[in-house]
């Protein structure tokens, strides 16, 4: 440890001498030293998957910066004017000021097109990164106690991000965004009983009205960003308060966090990543065209283009709307448009409801009251992982539905066949995905247990005296063994007491029965980690007569076809 410099009192360092004055001045007034002392050298663990949320954060910053630039010229007005700009194919056409100013930003403001494209790419990345980050949190169980509230805040961020993106998609008032608004209008109308009122109030009259673009603009640049900022602040504060989760490993326990200090390493890594995200989206804006509104033309309710789609994050709703059977009923003199309401409104509610409820449902099933700061490998929670993959499968199948026309043209398929595939697949494929994923998880758990109890295959082939061949196994390095076994042991499942001695159902037994069933389902097939005795026993097998572990024993006779070492 000679690299560590000898301790020098900070007052005696050059920086300490210089900084003492300003720091003192500030602290006299703000008293922040107490807070700063805890946080400036706060430790953050290092892992690439912990930086996915950062992509979302920095995309959001890029959105703020580029968005401010766009507001200098964008005009949120639906009044119609004649276009007289440099894009000649549309010259002389009647269009809204919103669309005209979007064209102006694209063709007359130098760098305007680039900033518009960066803004749009960042928006697509913002939502995508939030989802990827959420999947990381889900599959590693990072939402468990004490982080449930932060999970809910994250869901709020995702919801707001999707709404924010949709509002932005609508602002240019081109043919695509108008078609999107038309769809939202239909969606609002489908809401039982109050649908018409919602439409007339939000659009300021019948679709498209005069008001929707100014109102969406207000929501897009003020209301939703403010909410997003507030929630992001809360999200980060809780992250700092809880300290980041970490992967298990030697020296990493539930009681500590091992990593690099915020100042300087993590600040540099995070700050550097901001520039990377900004630079990367700028390059995307330079070379990849997104939303060429001039090609679509201004919105006109009697025009439409093939391939009318929302941005990708609304794609699963679009898919659900496309494949929904045409149900509509009349009850009590009211029309109920299930064909739009179920996929358009209820599906979103169900999805976010299920995601929000999951940490609490899981805790109810497992009965786990402990705090968790070590991440769980997906394989060690097979049912959770399987649920997650089933959900992703469902989402993906809906995506296929949302792009069915593009898929049909690009792969020469029948559009109705794709729709039917989605209609059936939406129920069948998630179940299949669930079963397959759970099997894979359990298989991986067995492999883990196997590599601890039977060591790893060394590739050293031995021929024994009687002529049989075998491969030497050696124990894993102890660090790896520790990492593999650092996860929760399975709880002992007890059948709930259903009847007391008089044969009367115990109070709450229905809930207890349901919980027992859920618990059995949750833990079914899961492989527990080896016990101390298992390991001791295994060590014996992997040891030679003197008890030294690594050298393969003379009684080691290789592995049978089933993978079990033939010993003794």
């Amino acid at each position, binding site marked *: 440890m000679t690299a560590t410099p000898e301790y020098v009192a900070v007052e005696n360092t050059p920086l300490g001498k210089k900084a003492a004055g300003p720091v003192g001045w500030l602290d006299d007034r703000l008293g922040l030293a107490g807070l700063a002392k805890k946080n400036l050298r706060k430790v953050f663990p290092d892992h690439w998957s912990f930086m996915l949320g950062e992509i979302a954060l920095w995309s959001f910053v890029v959105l703020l910066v580029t968005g401010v630039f766009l507001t200098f010229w964008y005009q949120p007005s639906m009044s119609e004017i004649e276009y007289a700009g440099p894009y000649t194919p549309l010259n002389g056409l009647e269009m809204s000021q919103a669309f005209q100013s979007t064209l102006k930003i694209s063709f007359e403001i130098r760098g305007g097109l680039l900033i518009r494209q960066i803004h749009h790419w960042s928006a697509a990345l913002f939502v995508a990164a939030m989802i990827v980050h959420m999947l990381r949190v889900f599959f590693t169980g990072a939402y468990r106690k004490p982080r449930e509230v932060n999970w809910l805040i994250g869901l709020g961020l995702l919801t707001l991000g999707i709404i924010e993106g949709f509002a932005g998609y609508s602002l240019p008032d081109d043919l695509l965004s108008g078609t999107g608004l038309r769809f939202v209008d239909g969606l609002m109308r489908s809401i039982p*009983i109050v649908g018409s009122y919602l439409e007339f109030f939000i659009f*300021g009259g019948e679709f498209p009205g005069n008001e929707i673009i100014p109102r969406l603009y207000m929501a897009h640049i003020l209301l939703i960003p403010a909410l997003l900022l507030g929630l992001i602040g809360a999200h980060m504060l809780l992250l700092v308060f809880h300290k980041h989760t970490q992967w298990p490993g*030697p020296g990493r326990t539930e009681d500590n966090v091992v990593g690099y200090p915020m100042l300087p390493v993590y600040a540099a890594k995070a700050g*550097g990543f901001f520039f990377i995200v900004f630079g990367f989206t700028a390059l995307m804006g330079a070379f990849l065209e997104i939303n060429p509104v001039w090609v679509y033309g201004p919105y006109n309710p009697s025009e439409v283009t*093939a391939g009318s789609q929302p941005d990708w994050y609304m794609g699963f709703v679009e898919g659900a709307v496309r494949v929904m059977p*045409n149900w509509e009923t009349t009850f009590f003199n*009211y029309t109920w448009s299930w064909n739009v309401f179920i996929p358009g409104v209820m599906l979103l509610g169900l999805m976010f409801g299920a995601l929000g409820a999951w940490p609490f449902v899981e805790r109810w099933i497992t009965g786990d009251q402990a705090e968790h700061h070590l991440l769980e490998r997906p394989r060690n929670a097979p049912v959770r992982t399987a649920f997650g993959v089933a959900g992703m499968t469902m989402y993906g199948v809906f995506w296929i539905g949302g792009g069915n026309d593009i898929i049909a043209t690009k792969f020469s398929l029948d559009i*109705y066949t794709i729709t039917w595939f989605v209609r059936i697949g939406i129920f069948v494929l998630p179940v299949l995905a669930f079963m397959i994923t759970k099997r894979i998880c359990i298989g991986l758990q067995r492999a883990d247990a196997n590599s601890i109890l039977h060591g790893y295959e060394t590739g050293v082939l031995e021929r024994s005296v009687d002529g049989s061949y075998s491969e030497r196994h050696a124990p894993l390095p102890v660090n790896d063994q520790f990492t593999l076994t650092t996860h929760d042991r399975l709880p002992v499942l007890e059948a709930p007491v259903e009847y007391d001695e008089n044969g009367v159902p115990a109070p709450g037994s229905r809930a207890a029965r349901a919980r027992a069933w859920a618990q059995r389902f949750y833990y079914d097939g899961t492989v527990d*980690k080896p016990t101390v005795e298992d390991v001791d026993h295994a060590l014996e097998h992997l040891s030679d007569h003197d008890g030294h572990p690594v050298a393969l024993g003379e009684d080691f006779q290789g592995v049978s076809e089933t993978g079990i070492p033939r010993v003794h």
Partner: protein
Amino acid sequence: MSDEIEPRDESREIQRREPIGDPGLPEHQYRPQDVDESQARRTERQISAMFLAAALLFVGFCVIYVTVDADTTFLGWSAQNVGFGFTLGTALLLIGVGIIQWAKKLMGDHEIIEMRHPARSSDEDRAEVLGDINAGLEESGIGRRPMIRNSLLTALGALGLPAVFLLRDLGPLPKDQRVTVWKKGMRVVNDVSGMPLKPSDLQVGQLVNGEPAVFFEEDSEGNRVYEGTELLQAKSKAAVIVVRMRPEAIRAAKGRENWGIDGILCYSKICTHVGCPISLWEQQTHHLLCPCHQSTFDLADNGKVIFGPAYRPLPQLPLALDSEGYLIAVSDFPEIVAPSYPELARDQKKLAEKS
């Protein structure tokens, strides 16, 4: 392990039950830069080169700003866009990569251990807070003086009223959703050009995207009757398609036998699902497909839905000829156009009573 020492705390007990004990943080391993000063200096030079290149690229951005004009293209793309984006993006990337390289290669590399504490406060703190809340409630007398509490809650509840009332003027109350601008005798004209249509203009297999003639008319002062947003609003319900098929292919429902003229039929262009304009007409199958959600309507069979999420058939506009032989509407749509809404069933009844 036969010693009798009881585990002192929970973590040690867990430790004991764990099959593999924690071997502790592995020994620190050094980077080439920690060991070899010349390596470190090379890395330093690399990082500085990135930062300087970024500065140059920013200058390049400004040069492009003043020298390249909007019409110039580069590889068929806008040279401005590519130039700005390339310089800006690459420079930012270089700054980011440089900073991270600095953090990875030259900044302190020793991992630090920080202890965690449970999120919950101590029992004393909790008790104190509960006590404080209790004292506060007690001193306020909120429990003892229910009248004050309830009247305050009433007042606060009533605050919701102005909030709701203030939103009332967001828009008018729903009205006239069931009617369009079509009326008896209005000519069906070609969209864009506004030309009226004669049956002889249409061949079998023809599709015309039509509008009501009123959209192209001017009032006595020379202003267009429908303009701007009002025009869009009216269009979003009144746009039609006119198609011609062989008369023998049409299976008109009872009462609709004379809604067409020699195989010329007129339907709403607005999908009854969520309102996309539909005009993907297959002239051989007589099917009309919506490009948004693939609802398919059979125009030879009264606009019946044959696939997709739309429930109501496409409303048909009854046609006739005026004295000059042009296509006109016999009335407004007898069925409600555009997407369904809660009051649709009632409105449909009203429409039926009227006709």
